[in-house]
């Protein structure tokens, strides 16, 4: 089972309306052979619609979809024959696990002996061998998910499409299956297109994440690049958590600028706008008012005085909400480093390296 036989997808200007609602607007996306791409966005952002358009169940009003350079919009779903894992799995309730996974092979008229062999291999790949004789209703959620996956990959499709494959499972199982799915992808080398609204899942598994909102692509890129260099407030907010600081911007030398609000000022790297996005885990918190500043941190570090509004210990981390001139700022400290936890009402000093912040265009909060 190798994906060497193609599997590169191109979406060009794909647009889909349902009555008056525009579900997908002008989506253009290149997916390379063997890539693991996640479409990430809030509910109703058009993720499933895009996936179903690729699978052949939704006909776009405009645009083109190509597989290895050949247009496929004219083909019915059964001729595109991508492996699809549906939201809720859609296992055939009247067939056993083996029956479900064998069905695509039966449709192709593959002889019995070969069918048996490929069935066993597919079940092996998702570690379902012992459950072959069970019916879907006798399986746990995670097992059902694996059956759906085996049914989608047994006929060696060039592309596997997954619609929220893990959303119905509990958190721990979800993380286990993310790792499994990723490993399977690496073994098969098949192109995977995954739809999710879980940013953690997208970051754990994907080579590339495509962020969608209201039917449009906002930004796409490798998980790290997106996380560290979001291009908009929506992306910064949706992928992980972020503080947004706004104020008066005045230029400094060396591509730096100063953001001022009330009596406080911080240094930022000049960017596309005047809204400073700052990841909470980049901010350190220590008791304020103390004069024992460690030597050696120069102008490359910002300092901001404030007062602790709340401190929450959640095991690995301590979450501080600190009231400052820039408004309330969330800071996350690893709990082992949070020296003598600060409590509500304590004076605090926040600090972060200048390069930790990104300037974004101002836009209304989502």
């Amino acid at each position, binding site marked *: 089972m190798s994906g060497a036989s193609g599997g590169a997808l191109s979406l060009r200007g794909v647009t889909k309306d349902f009555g008056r609602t525009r579900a997908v607007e002008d989506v253009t996306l290149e997916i390379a052979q063997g890539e693991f791409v996640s479409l990430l966005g809030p509910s109703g952002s058009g993720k499933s619609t895009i996936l179903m358009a690729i*699978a*052949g*169940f939704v006909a776009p009003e405009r645009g083109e979809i190509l597989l290895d350079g050949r247009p496929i919009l004219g083909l*019915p*779903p*059964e001729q595109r*024959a*991508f*492996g*699809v894992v*549906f*939201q*809720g799995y*859609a*296992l*055939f*309730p*009247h067939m056993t696990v083996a029956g479900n996974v064998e*069905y*695509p092979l039966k*449709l*192709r008229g593959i002889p019995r002996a070969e069918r048996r062999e490929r069935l066993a291999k597919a079940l092996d790949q998702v570690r379902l061998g012992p459950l072959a004789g069970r019916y879907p209703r006798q399986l746990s959620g995670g097992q059902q998910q694996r059956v759906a996956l085996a*049914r*989608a990959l047994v*006929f060696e499709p060039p592309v596997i499409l997954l619609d929220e494959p893990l959303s119905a499972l509990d958190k721990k199982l979800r993380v286990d299956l993310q790792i499994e799915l990723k490993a399977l992808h690496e073994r098969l080398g098949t192109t995977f297109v995954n739809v999710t609204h879980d940013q953690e899942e997208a970051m754990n598994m994907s080579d590339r994440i495509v962020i969608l909102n209201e039917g449009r692509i906002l930004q796409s890129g490798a998980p790290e690049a997106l996380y560290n260099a979001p291009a908009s407030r929506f992306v910064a907010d949706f992928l992980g958590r972020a503080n947004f600081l706004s104020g008066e911007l005045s230029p400094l030398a060396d591509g730096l600028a100063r953001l001022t609000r009330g009596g406080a000022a911080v240094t930022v790297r000049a960017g596309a706008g005047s809204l400073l996005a700052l990841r909470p885990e980049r901010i350190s918190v220590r008791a304020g008012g103390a004069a024992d500043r460690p030597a050696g941190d120069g102008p490359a570090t910002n300092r901001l005085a404030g007062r602790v509004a709340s401190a929450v210990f959640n095991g690995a981390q301590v979450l501080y909400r600190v009231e400052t001139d820039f408004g309330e700022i969330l800071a996350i400290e690893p709990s082992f480093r949070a020296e003598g936890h600060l409590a509500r009402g304590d004076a605090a000093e926040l600090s972060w390296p200048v390069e930790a912040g990104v300037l974004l265009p101002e836009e209304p909060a989502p």
Partner: protein
Amino acid sequence: MTRPYLLFVLPAVALVGLMFLLPLGWLAALSFGLPESFGLEHYEAIVTSPGIRSMLWTTLRLVTITTLVSLVLGYLVAFAMAHLGETQRLMLTLFVLVPFWLSVLARALAWLILLRHNGLLNEALTGAGLVERPLQLVRNELGVIIGMVHFLIPYAVFPLFAAMTTVDRRLVMAARSVGARPWRAFTDVYVPVTLPAIFGAGVLVFIFGLGFYVTPAILGGGRVVMLSEYISVSVLQTLRWAQAGALSMVLLLSVIALVWLVARAIGFRRLAGVG
């Protein structure tokens, strides 16, 4: 707590007891030849008498054919209702329901007018030169089947429709995505998934069909005698009450057995349409 409420149930219990269970028990007693004697000869007659046997055979055959035809047509109508647009669904529901509200007598007579020798259909067919002589459409088994199917289709449509609206659309999509053409997806996935409902609807129609009286009496024109008409004639004309009682008991027990069978197979709540 519950005691005062038991009093409210009493009138209903009394009514059912007096008006239903008592006569039923009396009927059962009659069927054994009571009070004059006690014996099973009337039950024996059901197996041995050629007249009764042929009547039972006719009943079974007609009801079976009616059930199958009603299921096929009902499945199509229910499918259209479940998967076409909102307007078509309303139209179809109306078409199915309006005859449902008419009295069974009016419907049988309407079919008679439509299908008889010089009825509307035959006039049209001969007038258009499509057939030379009028077709024999009523006063035979065909007429009975047409009338019964027409009456029973709603009983097939509604359970089927209810089941179809709960079928997950993604099942058929999943079949297509792995390579099934639409027809294959329909026969491999859609039909099996709705099979319990087909079974339930079939038994429902069959049970109603067994007890049919007015439709066969009118559209059969006295030539096609089914169970209910036979019982009625036994009671009202030939005065063989004991034989009628025995047949009634057999009918009752078969229906109970059928309901029990289905209740076991698909669950009673689903059969009654409440779950």
